[in-house]
């Protein structure tokens, strides 16, 4: 067995720090077997329960396609009880096809996500720990433009790092942004300002994402002004890949949205509810193990030298008040001539910190 797999499983369990007797739901898909088994074993060793729930799809499986709408919009008693009483969950994505579910009508997907949101709130509020990660499957490697063996090297390079050192670096960055009033992002086709006044950031190191490696905020909801062009990378969400997204903000709201492809999905998603046209997150990628974009948000948003903004729901525990059924992270490359300013001072240029 690859010893890196065992180390990865240990790290994932570290992310939730289970107490003896905890009921930990382990969600994955059949190709995730090696990692799922390692994680189950690690949970057993720490005296916690591993309740494995495999599915064939991450989102939008048969139930979402076929159930009558009134059934789809409600949770069964058993499912609600499980989500409400689990102590933690680990979402270990292992798709056979990363586009699975992309053909499900947004309305159906939205109903299911809405039904799931309420019982998951303690996790969104950080009252209960969870972790999301990927297994090294063929499909994930393919999306990243790699063979599965190359992807494993990449994956372990991003996760088996010195998390304590990275935590300290990120604490220093967060400390500077915590004092910020106005942040300005300048780059290709981009000049966007927004306020972080009164908002505290959070760093992700051995937290809810593996790999972690970001500092993130919920910006003041009505503050964003200007334009951002995601000209370098497509915006990926729910199996869609939207190239050339350009968003113009006035008083925090997106007043103009365009894309060079699949624009209908972009606009449709932004129109899915009132909160979908406002920012829920501003994040700063800090993981030195991730150098290239690979159309996988979990990794891409952590690339050192990038920032990302999510349209949609914000983080209540970070003071965010925006609410939406969506949370779509889009990644902006700053390593080629971009910069970040805090209250007029340049703090990062072409991806290099000047703190």
């Amino acid at each position, binding site marked *: 067995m690859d010893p890196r797999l065992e180390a990865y499983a240990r790290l994932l369990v570290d992310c939730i720090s289970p107490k003896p007797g905890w009921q930990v739901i382990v969600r994955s898909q059949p190709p995730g077997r090696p990692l799922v088994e390692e994680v189950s074993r690690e949970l057993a060793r720490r005296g916690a329960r591993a309740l494995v729930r495999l599915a064939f799809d991450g989102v939008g499986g048969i139930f979402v396609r076929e159930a009558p709408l009134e059934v789809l919009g409600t949770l069964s008693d*058993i499912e609600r009880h499980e989500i409400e009483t689990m102590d933690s969950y680990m979402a270990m994505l292992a798709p056979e096809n990363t586009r699975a579910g992309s053909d499900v009508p947004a309305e159906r997907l939205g109903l299911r996500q809405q039904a799931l949101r309420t019982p998951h709130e303690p996790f969104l509020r950080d009252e209960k720990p969870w972790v999301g990660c990927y297994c090294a499957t063929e499909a994930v490697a393919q999306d990243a433009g790699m063979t599965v063996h190359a992807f494993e090297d990449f994956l372990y390079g991003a996760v088996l790092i010195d998390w304590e050192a990275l935590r300290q670096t990120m604490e220093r960055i967060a400390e500077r942004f915590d004092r910020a009033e106005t942040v300005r992002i300048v780059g290709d086709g981009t000049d966007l300002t927004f306020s972080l006044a009164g908002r505290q950031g959070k760093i992700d190191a051995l937290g809810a994402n593996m790999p972690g490696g970001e500092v993130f905020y919920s910006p003041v909801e009505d503050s964003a002004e200007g334009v951002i062009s995601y000209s370098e990378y497509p915006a990926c969400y729910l199996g869609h890949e939207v190239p050339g997204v350009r968003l113009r903000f006035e008083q925090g709201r997106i007043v103009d949205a365009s894309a060079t492809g699949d624009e209908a999905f972009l606009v449709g998603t932004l129109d899915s509810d009132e909160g979908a046209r406002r920012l829920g997150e501003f994040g700063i990628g800090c993981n030195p193990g991730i150098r290239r974009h690979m159309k996988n948000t979990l990794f891409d948003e952590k690339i050192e030298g990038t920032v990302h903004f999510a349209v949609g729901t914000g983080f209540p525990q970070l003071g965010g008040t925006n609410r939406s059924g969506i949370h779509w992270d889009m990644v902006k490359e700053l390593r080629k001539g971009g910069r970040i300013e805090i209250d007029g001072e340049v703090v990062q240029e072409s991806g290099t910190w000047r703190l």
Partner: protein
Amino acid sequence: MAAVDPRAAEYARLLVERCLGVQAGWQVLIRSQPAARPVIEELMRLIANRGAYPLLRMNFSLWPVDEVWAAEAPEELVGELSPIDVYASDHMDARVTMEAPDNTRGVFALTPERRALAKRGVAPFLRRTMAHEIPWVSCQFPTNALAQEAGMALEEFEDFFYTACLRDWDAESEAMKRLLERFDAANEVRIVGADTDLTVSIRGREGEIDDGRVNMPGGEFFYSPVEDSAEGTIYFDVPTELDGDAVDGIRLTLRGGRIEQATAEQGEDVLLAALEMDEGARFVGELGIGCNEGITRPARSILFDEKMGGTIHMAIGASYPHVGGKNKSTLHWDLVKDLRREGRIELDGEVVQENGTWLI
């Protein structure tokens, strides 16, 4: 993607419509393994279409046991079902158990002590289905592992499998009812065959038919015989297994209902250990008559073998309370006797089946 075998769709429909009769609003647990994907997806589609909730409990091991976890978890957790799974067990309206192993020997070898603990932990999950409080069905999906166990190529096994399952179950039901009436009216059953002459009383006991409901394939009717009545010797010529250990050529001699002598040509140690499990393990919990003419050869799978037309089976261990059985045991091990070449069944002295052919 290859087209789904139309028989798989028909099979799923049978499970949802006949075996469970799924109603709107029901919470239907589907307990299975990844290899069953074509039927699982069809089940989920049919259940969702009926306005019910398909709740998939899929793992590499068969839920609620996780063999990899159970090998190393604290014993007190292994021996007790998690509260989340207890809740699901107590609130489900129906369940399908569909085995689809990649390897019939399991996922991870547990020590006998750990296996026993895990079994004890699962008991609360089995309680409601054993008591027939809710509709349930146990079945399989034709995987390579099951085909290999049956000694067949996959395509050959699929033909065997669907021939056994996709039957005119209403007609099968009628035929079995006629036989059941004769048995219900009888006091003593005698089984005669190669190395076999055994009598057992079913006086005062009523049988039950499985006409494709709690098992798929169905095709048997069964009794819990009077506990202290079995007398004589029986030789079980259909190979069997217990928890993955092969056992073949079992010979049992019973007096006053109790197994007094037991030998096996293969796996005798497994047999003897099973009989020592508890006192009830030495008594007969079930006498079943196989009636499924679609099953003409054993498949080393009890689900199929016990239904084979022209065979009978006896389970040693736990009996069924709902048909008057009183024997208690953690064991319930079905052993199959083939009567087709040389054998007969007598009811109160009258020959009712000879060499596998009914005379009534």
